C-alpha cells in the first residue's frame, strides 16, 4: 500500500515539475534570448529616454534587405542604416547622397557619379566605386530576383573610373533614372556582408547609414545604435528603435502616452485630436501617391467607357476627403498630386453630378450595373467603401462590398479576378513611377486591362525625354486621356502626417513620407 502511495506522490511531483519546466521553458526562451543580446537588454532598461528615439511604424517591416524589399514600411528603416547614392529634398529635387556630385551627358545616356570619400560600412568595409558596382550587379543578378531591378534594367554598361568615380551607360534615355537611385535601387549594402554566407541581410542589414543595426524582435521591434564611424554629421542621440503597431489606435495611444517619439502614419480621424494636443507637434505635407478605384475593363459593366465615366461623376470626392480623411487629403483626378510638377491644373475636380452620371449610364445602355467592390479590411477602408457604395447606389449601381486581406486583393488583381478594387499607390519621386507601370498597356500594375495607344505613346515619350517642361506637357495630356478613358477612378491624394513629441526637433518633411532619423534631435 505504502509503496503505491509513494509512487503516486512521486508521480504527482514529477508531473508538477514537468509543468513548471514547461512553463520555465516558455520563460526560458526569453531568458536565453536576452542573454544572447545582453547589452541590448541593458540598453532598454538603462537608456535614459533622452538618448533614445523611438519611432512608431504602422507595420512590421518584413525584409531588411533593400534590394529585396517591396514594402513601403521597410523604406522607413532603410533611412536609419542605409544610404542612397542620391537623396531628395523637400521639393523632391535630387541632392547629394553617397554620391557627392554627378554629371549627366547631353543625350541623357551617360551618368558619372563622384562618390563621397572616407565612408565606411558598419562592418568596417570601405565604400568606393567598386562597392557601388557590386551593388548594381547584385540588384541585376537574376539569382537574387530583386524586384527593384527594373530601375536599373536599362544599364548597358558600368565602369569604375577610379576609386571614387563611377560611370553608368544607359541603353536609352530614361528620365526617372536618378530618382530611382534615390529609392531602393540606390541603397548601398556592404559587399563584404552580402558575400558573407553567414550573414542574412534580410535580417541583419549592414550599410553606411548613421545608425547601425543591433537587433530585431520579429513582428515587434528593431533596435539601432549610433554608428560612431559615420562619415557625416553624427546624430544627436545614441539609440534608435522602431516599434511596429499595426493598430492605428494603439500607435497613437503610445505616442500620446510618451512611449513613442514620432509616428510614421496616423488614421485621419485622429488628426483633430492630435492637433489639439499641446505636447504633440504635427507635420503635414502633401503626399505624392494617388488613391482610387481600379476598374476591371475586361468585365461588364466596366468594359463600357460611359459606365466608367459615370463613376467619375457619381462619387463625391469632397465628402470623402472631409468625412473619412477629415480634410487630410486632396481630391484627385489624376495620378499626379497637386504639388507635383506633372500635375495638370486645367483638370479641375468636378462636383458630384448625379444627373450627369445617370445620363452617362443611360447612354451606355448597360442594364446590369451590379458589381463587387473589393477592399481591405481596415476601418478607414471600410468607412470609405461604405460611402462609395452609398454614392454609387444612388446613381443606379448595385455595389456589394467585399473585405479581403490586402494580400488576397493583390492575388486577385494578378488573376484579373475582380470587378472593382480599392488599390492605390504610395507614389514615386518621378512622375513616371506614378504613371508608366500603372497605365501603360500590359504593364505591371495595369490590372484594369485598359489600353490606349495615345496614352502609351505619351508615357513612353515622357520617360525617354530629359527636358522637364516637355515631360510636363506630356503628363498633362496623359492625365486628360486618363480622365476621359477612366480605367481608374482617382479619388484622393492622401496627405502625409507625421505627429511627434514636442521635444523632437529638426524634422524635415520630405513628400516621400520617410523619416530621416539622423536629422532629428531630442531636446
Amino acid at each position: 500500500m505504502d509503496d503505491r502511495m509513494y509512487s503516486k506522490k512521486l508521480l504527482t511531483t514529477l508531473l508538477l515539475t514537468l509543468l513548471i519546466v514547461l512553463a520555465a521553458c516558455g520563460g526560458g526562451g526569453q531568458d536565453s534570448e536576452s542573454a544572447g543580446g545582453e547589452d541590448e537588454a541593458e540598453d532598454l532598461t538603462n537608456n535614459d529616454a533622452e538618448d533614445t528615439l523611438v519611432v512608431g511604424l504602422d507595420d512590421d517591416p518584413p525584409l531588411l534587405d533593400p534590394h529585396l524589399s517591396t514594402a513601403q514600411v521597410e523604406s522607413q528603416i532603410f533611412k536609419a542604416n542605409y544610404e542612397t547614392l542620391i537623396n531628395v529634398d523637400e521639393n523632391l529635387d535630387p541632392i547629394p547622397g553617397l554620391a557627392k556630385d554627378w554629371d549627366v551627358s547631353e543625350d541623357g545616356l551617360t551618368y558619372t557619379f563622384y562618390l563621397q570619400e572616407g565612408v565606411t560600412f558598419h562592418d568596417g568595409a570601405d565604400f568606393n566605386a567598386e562597392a557601388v558596382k557590386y551593388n548594381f550587379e547584385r540588384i541585376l543578378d537574376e539569382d537574387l530576383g530583386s524586384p527593384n531591378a527594373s530601375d536599373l534594367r536599362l544599364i548597358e554598361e558600368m565602369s569604375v573610373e577610379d576609386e571614387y568615380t563611377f560611370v553608368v551607360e544607359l541603353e536609352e534615355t530614361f528620365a526617372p533614372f536618378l530618382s530611382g537611385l534615390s529609392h531602393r535601387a540606390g541603397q548601398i549594402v556592404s559587399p563584404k556582408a552580402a558575400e558573407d554566407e553567414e550573414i542574412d541581410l534580410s535580417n541583419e542589414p549592414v550599410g553606411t547609414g548613421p545608425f547601425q543595426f543591433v537587433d530585431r524582435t520579429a513582428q515587434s521591434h528593431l533596435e539601432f545604435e549610433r554608428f560612431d564611424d559615420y562619415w557625416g554629421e553624427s546624430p544627436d542621440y545614441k539609440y534608435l528603435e522602431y516599434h511596429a503597431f499595426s493598430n492605428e489606435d494603439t500607435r497613437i495611444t503610445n505616442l500620446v502616452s510618451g512611449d513613442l517619439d514620432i509616428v510614421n502614419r496616423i488614421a485621419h480621424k485622429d488628426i483633430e485630436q492630435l492637433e489639439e494636443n499641446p505636447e504633440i507637434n504635427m507635420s503635414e505635407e502633401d503626399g505624392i501617391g494617388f488613391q482610387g478605384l481600379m476598374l476591371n475593363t475586361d468585365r461588364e459593366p466596366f468594359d463600357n467607357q460611359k459606365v466608367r465615366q459615370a463613376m467619375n461623376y457619381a462619387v463625391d470626392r469632397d465628402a470623402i476627403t472631409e468625412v473619412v480623411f477629415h480634410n487630410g487629403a486632396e481630391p484627385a483626378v489624376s495620378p499626379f498630386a497637386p504639388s507635383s510638377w506633372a500635375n495638370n491644373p486645367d483638370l479641375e475636380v468636378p462636383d458630384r453630378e448625379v444627373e450627369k452620371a445617370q445620363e452617362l449610364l443611360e447612354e451606355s445602355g448597360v442594364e446590369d450595373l451590379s458589381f463587387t467592390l473589393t477592399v481591405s479590411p481596415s476601418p478607414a477602408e471600410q468607412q470609405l467603401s461604405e460611402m462609395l457604395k452609398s454614392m454609387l447606389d444612388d446613381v443606379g449601381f448595385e455595389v456589394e462590398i467585399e473585405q479581403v486581406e490586402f494580400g488576397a486583393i493583390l492575388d486577385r488583381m494578378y488573376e484579373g479576378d475582380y470587378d472593382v478594387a480599392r488599390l492605390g499607390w504610395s507614389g514615386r519621386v518621378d512622375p513616371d513611377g506614378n504613371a508608366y507601370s500603372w497605365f501603360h498597356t500590359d504593364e505591371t500594375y495595369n490590372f484594369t486591362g485598359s489600353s490606349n495607344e495615345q496614352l502609351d505613346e505619351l508615357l513612353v515619350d515622357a520617360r525617354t525625354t530629359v527636358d522637364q517642361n516637355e515631360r510636363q506637357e506630356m503628363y498633362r495630356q496623359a492625365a486628360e486621356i486618363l480622365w476621359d478613358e477612366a480605367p481608374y477612378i482617382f479619388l484622393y491624394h492622401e496627405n502625409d502626417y507625421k505627429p511627434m513629441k514636442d521635444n523632437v526637433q529638426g524634422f524635415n518633411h520630405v513628400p516621400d513620407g520617410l523619416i530621416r532619423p539622423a536629422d532629428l534631435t531630442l531636446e
Partner: protein
Amino acid sequence: MEQTENLSVQTTKVQNPRLRMLKTMLERLWQNKLAVFGGVVTFLLIFTALFATWLAPHDPTEQNYSAVLQAPSSEYWFGTDNLGRDIFSRVIYGAQVSLQAGLISVGIALIIGVPIGLISGYYRGFIDEYIIMRMTDAMLSIPALVLALALAAVLGAGLTNAMIAIGLVLTPNFVRLIRGEVLAHREKEYVEAGKASGISDFSIILKHILPNTIAPIMVQATLAIAAAIIVEASLSYLGLGTQPPNPSWGSMLATGQGYLDSAPWIALFPGALIFITVISINLFGDGIRDMLDPKMK
C-alpha cells in the same frame, strides 16, 4: 387511486397526451421567472429582427455627412456613427444578422452532427472510435474561434460563409453530445426491450433514442446559438463576418473601438445588445433544461 380517478374524469384531455405534456412543461417553465424573462427578451429580439423595417426610425445604411459622430439625442437615440448613420436603426437591423447567424449556424451543426452522432454512437466500432471520435477530438482541440477564423478565411468573408464556418466548428460538439447520449441510452433497458421486441435499428434510433436526446440537444443548441452569436460578432469584428454596409453588431463594435474617446456610443450600444441577446438566450436555455428535465416531476 387518484390517477385512475383523474383519468375517468378528464377523458377528453387524456386523449391528447402530447398537449398534456406540453402543458406541464410550460407550467414548469413559467415557474422559472428568469427563464421567462429570457424567453420574453429573446422573443422581443426575434420580433425586432422580423419587423426591423417598421421599427427602425432611419434607414440603417443612410449616410448623413452633416450628422457624423453625433451623441445620442431625440433624433438619434443611440447617436450616429462615423458616416452619420443612425446607430439605433443599425442595432435593430443588426439583430437580424446576429439571430440569423445563431440559428442557421446551429442548424447546420445539427443537420450534420445529429446523424453522425446517432449512427456513430449506435453502431460504435472502428470508424466511430478511431475516425469520427478522433476527428472530433482533433477539431475540438483547435480553439473554435481559430478554426472559425481559418474556415471563414478559406470560404471568403461574408455572413453566409461565416455561418457555414461557425456551423462546421460547432458540429463536433453535437456529434460528441449526441454520441454520448446514444451510448447512455443504448444500454438502457427500454432500448434492449425494443430490440427484444424485434423493432428495427432504424426505428430504435429514430423513434426511441432520438426523442430522448432531444432535451440535451435543445439545451446544447441554445447554448450553441449564444456561442454562435458571439463567434459571428468576433468574425465581424475581425472583418471576416458580415460585410459592410450591412449592420452587424460585431463590425459596429470594431468601428466603434476607434472612437472610444470621442464617440463611445458607437461601440457601447451594439456590445450591450450582444450581451442582452446572449444572456437572454442562456437564461431561456436554462429554463428549457429545467423544463425538459427527464425526471419530469
